[in-house]
Every structure is written in structure tokens, then in C-alpha cells.
């Protein structure tokens, strides 16, 4: 297991550990928005920059850097702090109303941005393009319903042609992983609405209580869990009730 020196303190971590995790192991929290433990390294937001001082000197994104033996790191060198601060300033200018970004910035000692603000039609922007939604949808859910559109500062995330997605299963993982709350999801009547993707997904109705409770396209999961055949169609509340009733029927003596 490699031993890494972080700000002068040695930490031993398993081979292949990402530097960001090793730094956390040493009790230091770095700002990060594009990293998620369930997804492969991406290195996009550049908030977790640290300075490597050995075996060679380099400014790196710690979330995408696997540790190696005899690595030495300074998390608060002037270069690293400057890189993190400028990234936060730039993101504050991109998403002026994001509390998440402002809080991260304050922790790094940044309270205002010197950069020009976005045009008024983008003043409500909360997305800072970390790509977690795109990656979770493609790499974990396997739906690939959304992707990046455009490039450079015109880049954004959306479903193809900004139309109702026919690949979205309405699972809501995108909204769940979004670090800045940019993806608004709402269940209204018999529909789940993903405002950011201009997409509406029908909800399935529980035959037990009549409530709408789950996106209809997720029903394909039924084939993957044959043991749940009997209780699949009902909502979690009814499922609990049915399971309890069945259990009680099978174990009458205990009830008495």
C-alpha cells in the first residue's frame, strides 16, 4: 500500500486510491463538485486542485489522480489555493445565485467575483456542468437519456434536440446527484416532470390504494427480480401491508 505525504503528514492508503480520498483520509476537505464515488474519475470542475511536490512538481486535480508510492502533496500551496479560488470565482460568475457554490467559495476565502456576470437570461443558471447527471444516466442507469450539447461556453446538458426524451425512464438519478440543485423534478398527478429535460414520464398507479407512485418505464426491472412478482405492482406502503399480512398468515401462532 502506497504511503503518501500530505502537508508533511504520512497517510497509507490502498493502491489505486484517488488522491482526493487520500487527502480526506488526512482530515483535509477539498472543494469538489464533479466527483462521485460511484462514478469513474472525470476531472472537470478543477476545484480540488493540489500541488504535487514529489516525485515531480505538478498542479493536479486530486479527484483524477491515483496515488503512487512516495507521492508528496501540498494542499495549501499558493498555486493550489490560487487555482481553487479562481475556479470558484469563475463559477460564481457563471451561477451567481448558487448557494452551494457561494458556500464552497466562502470556505476557500472567496466572497466576491471579479468576473463579468452572465447575460440576464442566464442569471438563474445553477448548472456548472460537472456532468454528474450525464454520467450517472449513461454509466450507471444505462439510459443515456441526456448528454452535453454544444461546446465551450455554449455547452449545456439536455435531451436530444431539447425534446421530450424517449430514453428517460424517470428514475430521477440525475436530480439526485446534481450538486447544485439545478435539476428540478416534480411528481404532479399521473406524471413525473423533469423540467430541465423538458420531459414528462407517466407514473404507474398502485392497484391497492390507487395512488401514483413510480415511473411506468421502470417496470422493466420486474424481470430482474422474479421473487418480487407478487408484490411488484403495488406501492411501498401497500407492499408493506401485504407482506405483513402474508407473514402473519404463515405464522399464525406467533401472532397469538
Amino acid at each position, binding site marked *: 500500500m502506497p504511503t503518501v505525504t500530505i502537508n508533511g503528514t504520512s497517510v497509507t492508503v490502498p493502491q489505486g486510491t484517488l488522491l482526493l480520498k487520500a487527502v480526506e483520509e488526512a482530515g483535509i476537505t477539498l472543494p469538489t463538485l464533479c466527483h462521485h464515488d460511484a462514478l469513474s474519475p472525470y*476531472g*472537470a470542475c478543477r476545484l480540488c486542485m493540489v500541488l504535487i511536490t514529489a516525485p515531480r512538481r505538478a498542479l493536479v486535480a486530486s479527484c*483524477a489522480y491515483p496515488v503512487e508510492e512516495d507521492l508528496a502533496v501540498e494542499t495549501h500551496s499558493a498555486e493550489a489555493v490560487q487555482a481553487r479560488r479562481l*475556479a470558484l470565482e469563475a*463559477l460564481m460568475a457563471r451561477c451567481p445565485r448558487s448557494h452551494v457554490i457561494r458556500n464552497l467559495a466562502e470556505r476557500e476565502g472567496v466572497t466576491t467575483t471579479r468576473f463579468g456576470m452572465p447575460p440576464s437570461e442566464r442569471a438563474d443558471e445553477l448548472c456548472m*456542468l460537472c456532468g454528474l447527471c450525464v454520467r450517472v444516466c449513461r454509466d450507471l442507469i444505462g439510459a443515456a437519456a441526456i448528454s*452535453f450539447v454544444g461546446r*465551450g*461556453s455554449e455547452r449545456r446538458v439536455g435531451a436530444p434536440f431539447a425534446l421530450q426524451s424517449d430514453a428517460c425512464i424517470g428514475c430521477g438519478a440525475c436530480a439526485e446527484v446534481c450538486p447544485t440543485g439545478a435539476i428540478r423534478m416534480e411528481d404532479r398527478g399521473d406524471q413525473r416532470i423533469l423540467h430541465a429535460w423538458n420531459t414528462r414520464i407517466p407514473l404507474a398507479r398502485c392497484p391497492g390504494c390507487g395512488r401514483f407512485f413510480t415511473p411506468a418505464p421502470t417496470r422493466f426491472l420486474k424481470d430482474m427480480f422474479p421473487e418480487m412478482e407478487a408484490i411488484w405492482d403495488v406501492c411501498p406502503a401497500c407492499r408493506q401491508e401485504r407482506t405483513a399480512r402474508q407473514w402473519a398468515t404463515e405464522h399464525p401462532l406467533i401472532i397469538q
Partner: protein
Amino acid sequence: MKIRTHADLEGLRAEGDALLHSARPRICVGMATCGMAAGAGAVFKAIGEAATASGLDVMLVSTGCIGCCQQEPVVDVRMPGQGRVVYARMTPEAGERLIAALSAGELPAEHAMAVIPEPGSALPEKPQGLSHLPRMEDLPFYKKQQKIILRNSGRIDPRRVEEYAAAEGYTALERVLLHLSPQETIDEITRSGLRGRGGAGFPTGKKWDLCSRAPGTARYIICNADEGDPGAYMDRTVLESDPYAVIEGMTIAGYAIGASEGYVYVRNEYPLAIERIHHAIEQAGELGLLGDNILGSGFTFSIDVVRGAGAFVCGEETALITSMEGGLSEPRPRPPYPAVKGLWGQPTVINNVKTLASIPAIVAKGADWYAGIGTEGNAGTVVFSLVGKVANTGLVEAPLGLTLDEMIHGIGGGGLDGRQVKAVQTGGPSGGCIPASLFHLPIDYASLSHAGSIMGSGGMVVMDEETCMVDVALYFLRFTMAESCGKCTPCREGTRQMVEILTRIVEGKADPGDLDLLEEVALWVKGASLCGLGQTAPNPVLSTFRYFRDEYDAHVNERRCPAGVCRALVRFAIAPGRCTGCGLCLRECSVGAITGEKKQPHRIDEALCARCRACYDICPEGAVEIAR
């Protein structure tokens, strides 16, 4: 027919030799994209029609680019047994007259630029009546050049493999497949000192060696032809003029690293290059020079063409791979490097077009020969597209170590219209501007990088007193901002912020604090970006800041553009004493800002003037003045 043996190959060469040294007059028209743009198509057609009409039996060939793009359309004529006569700036009419003269058994002097003597010919090297012409190699433009990558450009027909074979083509492949092991091949390239010509200059042999040792179930070789720097067109020209050299180079690379599949990743904006490489691959396949059991060696190799969709970032190797895999073209963190984990997760070598085109020459003539060209640590030649405000523009191939001065004032002939050259921009949007005071520097990887620029893939844009360095920085930053993939924050947001600050500067709206902020952002983008595009994007800003800080200060502190370029900071006026009242400027002005009677001095209404410079450019008397 399949080429399986040495005798087969010699047969092919004999066929090609009969074409190159035809018993009929051989007329080559340079028909690469540069020639086509200058009107070579019409010249080719006129010559063909005139020859048919006059019954003259000629061999009319469309070749690639001979290098002096400024002299296009270029036609060269070889009479049997004699050298070639090169005709410059041809027109269809001059083409017809050329045929008329040839019919009378003469070579016309009109449009003739130089002669290329025939080696070993018993005839005088300069044809009768043309003894005044210089030899091509004595022209200032060619004097210091040495052609290795462009050895066949403009000479052979890029659609005929037999002509390529006759020009020593496939000598190297034969040597490698029949006499060298893959490791010996790699060692040969390592010893030659060849470094990647795509820009970063990584040693080619080392890259091949890393790839050949990396574990994998398959290996790939990719030719990177996604050239996209503004003002650079070296790779396009090589593919258009000598596609077989690239194919042979890729086949040798494939053999060396153990790949049986290769890909040419070429941008879709290069239709002629795509057509020619496709044709060449097809022809090589038909002859068995690609496919199974090449030259009877048992080695199998095939090449496919993949067309890029016009994203500059795909020149970055990891983005190129993602794009080939069908994903969104964005780079990924390295390591792992493609040589270890590349296309489809397998070890992959990505080499630039020029690197691969150099390979056959190196193998055929030997590593020592190549290592002897150039300087220590900088072996061989590089191709530059010399453009901008320089007298001679075109494709230049010269040994590494040539000084910038020899390049710009020697080969390039100095500034345009005798003006003073101020700086040169090397390496495209990723490069920097080097001032004339540093023109004593040799052109090599370390010197250029030390001066704040890069070798890059070979763009060389010359600038003079009429170039505003702030405007140049803004131009390149606008380019990288638009071409940034947008994945990482510094490149996406930083380039945008730099463009905003530079825009304020050229509009005269900046304050001194903006200069510090600009430098701060530039250093951040350089240090914190994910891939090479972002890491080098600030170079135009940082290098102009380093050498031309006075121009920035003039814009910010004095609201003045010393070069007279930035529209918001200049005023146009007509000097009454010099104006002859010819009316040219009045007709040229698209906003009606110029008034005046015929033969009386004109004047410009400042309130209406859009500062487009049209009057300044057209005035034959130089009467329009720019107040800077």
C-alpha cells in the same frame, strides 16, 4: 495483380518510372487545395483541351503542392530526357500558349520561374532559350529547404502508386518486413531521433516501444490528420500530395508495434485529402500492399479512414479516441496514456501525418542519415506553413535548428511590401508570438518553448508593424474559446473571461486592473486545465504580454492602438495635400462616410465612419491616414 515479391515490386517501379520519365512531354499541374483555390482547375482544363485540339501527345498529370503556394497555379513541364521547367502564376490562356509553343517544339519563357535539372542527363541542364532561369534549389525560397516529408509533393501523381514506388517508395517497407524484427524497427526509429511532428515532440521510437510492451488483446495505430490551427495546412498537403508515404509509414508502424489495424482520423473539411487517401488505400489494397501477407511476409495490416466532425479539440489524442469510439469529443485525464490504454482500451499509437510520412524515408536511408540532419536532440526536418505578412508564403520544409531569421528573412524574403517584420506566431492558437529581437533563435523544441511559444504542428504567421498584438491575442483566444470542449472550468470559463477582458482593452474600456486580472486568469488556465488545448490556450496572451506589454499599456492607459488596428481607438482622415480626388475611396466606402467633388480633396465624416479600413487599403496615393 498482387505485389508479393521483390521482382513484382521492381515491375511496379518500372511502370512508374516510365510515367515519371515519359517519352512524351509530361505536364504536371499542382492540384492540391492551395492550387485549386488559385485556379489550377481551369488551367488544367485549358491545357488538356488545347493539347487535344492541337493533336499534341502529352501526359497531363494532376499532382500535389510543390510548396510555393504563393506562385500557384504552378505547372511544370518535362520534355523527354530533359529537366523540368516550372511555370508560376499560370492562367488558362498561358496554358493554351504553352501548348502552342510545345507543339512548335519550344519551351516558352513566359511565366517560367525556374528549372529542376534532370540528374544524369546528357543534355544541358537548362533548355535552350531558358538559360536565364535559376535552378529551383537556388531560389531564395528553396535555398535552405530540405525535403524529406514533402519529398514527392508536386512531383508524383498522388493517384498512382507506381509513381510512388518508382520514387523509392516501398523500399523501407520491404526492408522492414523482410529484414528487420519489430523491435529492430523500433530501435531504428529511436536511433534516428525522430520526435512527434504534431507539436509536443515526444520521441516517436519511445512511444512505439511503450505501446509494443503494453499488455492488450489488440493494438492500433492512428494517423492524426485532424489539423485545425488557423493558417496551417501541412498535413492536408501531405495527404493530398503523397498519401502513399503516410500509408507506408503506418504499415511500418503497425508492424513495429504489432498492430493489424490502422486508422486515419482526418477532418471532414479536407474533402480532397479524404478522397486521395481513400483512393490510395484502395489501390494499395488491390495490389496487396495492404491486407493479408504483405510482400509475402505473412504480415497483415489494413487501414480505415475516420472523418472528424470539425472539433479542434480532437487533435488532442484522448479526445480523438473518444470521438472514434462514438462518444462526445472531450479529453480524459492522463495517465493512462493511449500508448498503454487507448482505442477500445487497447494500446494505441497516435502519430501525426508528417511523423508517419517521415518514417519510410528514415528506414530507407537509415537512422544515422536522419540523425545527422538538424541539431543535437532535434533531428530531421519540419514542415511549416509560412503565412501572414511575409513576402514569400507557402509550405517550407527545413532542418530543425534553422534560425527564425533564416526562415523569415531568408526563405520568406522578409516583410510584405518591404515593411518591417515585428513578430512571428508559431504553433497556432496554442503558440506564442516571438518578437523580431529574438529571431536569432534556432527553430527547435526547446528554444521555442523557452521563448514562450511552442513548435506546434507547424503554423508560422508573420506579423509586421500593422499588426496589433492585442488584437492578435484576442483573435486566437476567440478561436480557443469557441473550440474549447467546455468540459473543464478553467478552459471553458477562463477563455471566455480572457476574451471579455481583451475585448474591453481593444474597445478602450479597460482599466489598469484588467491587465493584472488578465494575467492572473491566463496563468490559471495554463496551470489548471485538463488537456493541452486549455493548457496552451493562454500562450498568445502570455507571450504578447511578455514582449509587447507597451502595446497593452497604450491601449489601456492612453486609449491608443499603436498599430492602428483596433477600430474603437483609431480615426481615419484624408490628407488634403495628397488626395487627388480620384473617387476610389468614395465608391469603396460602404457607409457613405466619404464626400468630395471629383478632382477635389475628399473628406471622411467621422460620425459615419465604420473604421473598416477599406479607404486606407484602396487609396493609390496613400492619402488616407490613420490617427493612432
